[in-house]
């Protein structure tokens, strides 16, 4: 054991030892891949050969000639926006009822089930449930005399379906984040508001929502980032179909890379998507923070 003077902050080499795996990982699996990705986006590369430098050609092709790329960007927006706009209020609403109910352990287990399930199983389970003719939903609708939609074969409905399944998958997790925030609100504040003569609605708007604002910002932005980059569900559930109607950009670049072996163009596509996500998240964050400051 070394003897030395007491040092209030440092611990000699110890902190560096503790963070050494972090640093090594950050270099090998964060910095180098990002650099490599940028390099690749300036090349044409079928990985069974060697990369050839093509400058900005891949970006030019994607942005000016590739209709499928733009369609995929549009689909990405629809998916992410649908996921946030429907999913976040829904989980907030569920959190309100959940946080005031009995038997929380049971509800929590049930609502958390999808989060425990692998995405392949989720995709296939819903394929069975949503089958046009023999899925349980359309069978049930048929019994009541209604014609159920073509959930997965109609292009518009297919997008609706993947958004709904994504919400189903994530609702439980966000509900728990919101309910944690709700429970952290001091009950004395409610008492005070009630004494003050504030009605339920006013209490909600003026006390509860501002108090859970950090949770709201957190959930909205993480959901948005997740929605823009998530493609495992779509890959397994619709494969991007029918006719490309659910092909989001992340899926498009993935298949470009690992099916058509166009690594350069795929890297360029992924970088474009990343820049879009980065800019939009920043704007969103600013907007949400800004409102908070005004209040």
């Amino acid at each position, binding site marked *: 054991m070394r003897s030395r003077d007491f040092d209030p902050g440092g611990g000699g080499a110890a902190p560096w030892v503790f963070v050494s795996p972090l640093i090594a990982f950050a270099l090998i699996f964060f910095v180098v891949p990002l650099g490599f990705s940028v390099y690749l986006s300036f090349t044409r590369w079928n990985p*069974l050969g060697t990369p050839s430098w093509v400058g900005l050609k891949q970006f030019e092709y994607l942005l000016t000639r590739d209709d499928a790329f733009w369609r995929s960007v549009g689909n990405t927006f629809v998916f992410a926006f649908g996921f946030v706009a429907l999913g976040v209020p829904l989980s907030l609403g569920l959190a309100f009822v959940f946080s005031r109910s009995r038997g929380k352990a049971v509800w929590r287990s049930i609502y958390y089930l999808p989060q425990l399930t692998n995405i392949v199983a989720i995709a296939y389970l819903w394929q069975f449930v949503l089958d*046009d*003719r023999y899925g349980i939903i359309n069978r049930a609708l048929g019994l009541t*005399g209604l*014609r159920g939609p073509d959930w997965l*074969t109609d292009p518009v409905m297919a997008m609706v379906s993947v958004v709904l399944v994504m919400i189903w998958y994530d609702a439980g997790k966000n509900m728990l984040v919101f309910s944690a925030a709700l429970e952290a609100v001091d009950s004395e504040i409610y008492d005070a508001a009630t004494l003050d003569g504030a009605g339920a609605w006013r209490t909600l708007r003026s006390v509860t929502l501002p108090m859970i604002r950090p949770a709201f910002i957190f959930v909205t932005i993480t959901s948005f980032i997740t929605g823009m980059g998530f493609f495992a569900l779509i890959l397994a559930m619709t*494969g991007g179909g029918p006719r490309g109607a659910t092909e989001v950009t992340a899926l498009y670049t993935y298949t470009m890379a*690992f*099916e058509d072996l166009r690594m350069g163009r795929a890297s360029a596509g992924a970088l474009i998507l990343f820049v879009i996500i980065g800019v939009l998240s920043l704007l969103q964050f600013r907007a949400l923070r800004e409102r908070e400051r005004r209040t």
Partner: protein
Amino acid sequence: MFNQTTAPLAIAAMLGAAIPAHADDAPLTVAMHYTQEQAAPLIACLEDYDVDGIGAEYRQITYGDYLQTVLTGRLAGQAPDIYNVYSIWAAQMVDNGVLDPVPDDLAGFVRDGYSTGTVDAATIDGTLWGVPTEVSVYMLVSNMALLREAGFDAPPTTWDGLREVAQAVATRNAQGRTETAGFAFGQSSSGAGLVHPFYALLYSEGGKVYSDDRSEALFDSPEALAALEREAGLVRDGIADLSVDAYDFPAGGIGMIVMANWLESEIRAGFGDRFDEDVAVSQIPMGDDWRTLQYAFFMGVDSGSDRKDAAWALVEHLNTPRDGGLSCMGEMLGQLGALTASTADNAAGEAPDAFTAPFVAALEDGRAISQPNVMQASEIEGLMAQAFERAMAGEASSEAALEDLDREVEDILFEFY
């Protein structure tokens, strides 16, 4: 609990696992798209195989993923020794240097023992790349119970006839959902369910997909338009329904499908005792000059395998008739209801049953035309399926869909030809 040595230890343990066990006596790997169940006779042969202490094992790679798996697998040093290659994947595999050319002594065996169409399917730029195995043909398959109920004693032989029969067979429930379908397309992930029947119609119209030097796509030809109009017309006029899948035919709810012979075992399972009576196979309903599509697989060897000679020996073993009987491959294909390209196996096997006979006849009459081997063929097939679906769903006219398709495919061909 955890101390600072845990992480390095765990990482070291993983790196230990990283050094692959590289044993020279590891079994040769044969990668095919058939399920374990379908490949059972072949797997039995592989398990018995032992030459100089080298055995063999089976690996299943799903049809829809086969080409991608092979290409990324090679990057990762996970290539099998022996492939079963669908002819449309061949150009790309050859271009990427994946395949080993057939050794001279085996080439003679192939040229003498296999039909010309299937040898062509295994040939790229004049070089033979493997031993043909399975060959498939598309024909019209009908559920005669449904046809008779609707008042027809025989399957149609013309396209107008098909439309009439399909319309008569189809029933819908109160919500307008198809209950019994008159005609159905297959909804496979690769798009083959739409694309392969299209080839049959296109060939019957006298058309083709590419110019002979492969530099030009011919989707803008009148024949292609006519073929697509026939397919799309079925959906547009409410005769066929894209929400019904040809794979549901065995359940008995579909009147007619244009399908390959390999679905036989599945159809048998579904129809049971009524199979012989109720299932009919007949010509592509395009009049007297009908043509159809044939496509073939061949068994090839990985160029990077360190035991190519042993691998070729195994390929030969699996495809050589045993004691005047069927080869291992022939036995497996026979049980599947699939057709073999081997003349010897055809001679040694039982005479084809009533279901299979029309498929064999189409091959022998020269009515079955091979699918062209071009670069990026599976990517192109995906584009074709998307374009056809758009036309069927009425999102684009057939002309517009084909025009777009022609441009997209020529963009791809331009890269390679």
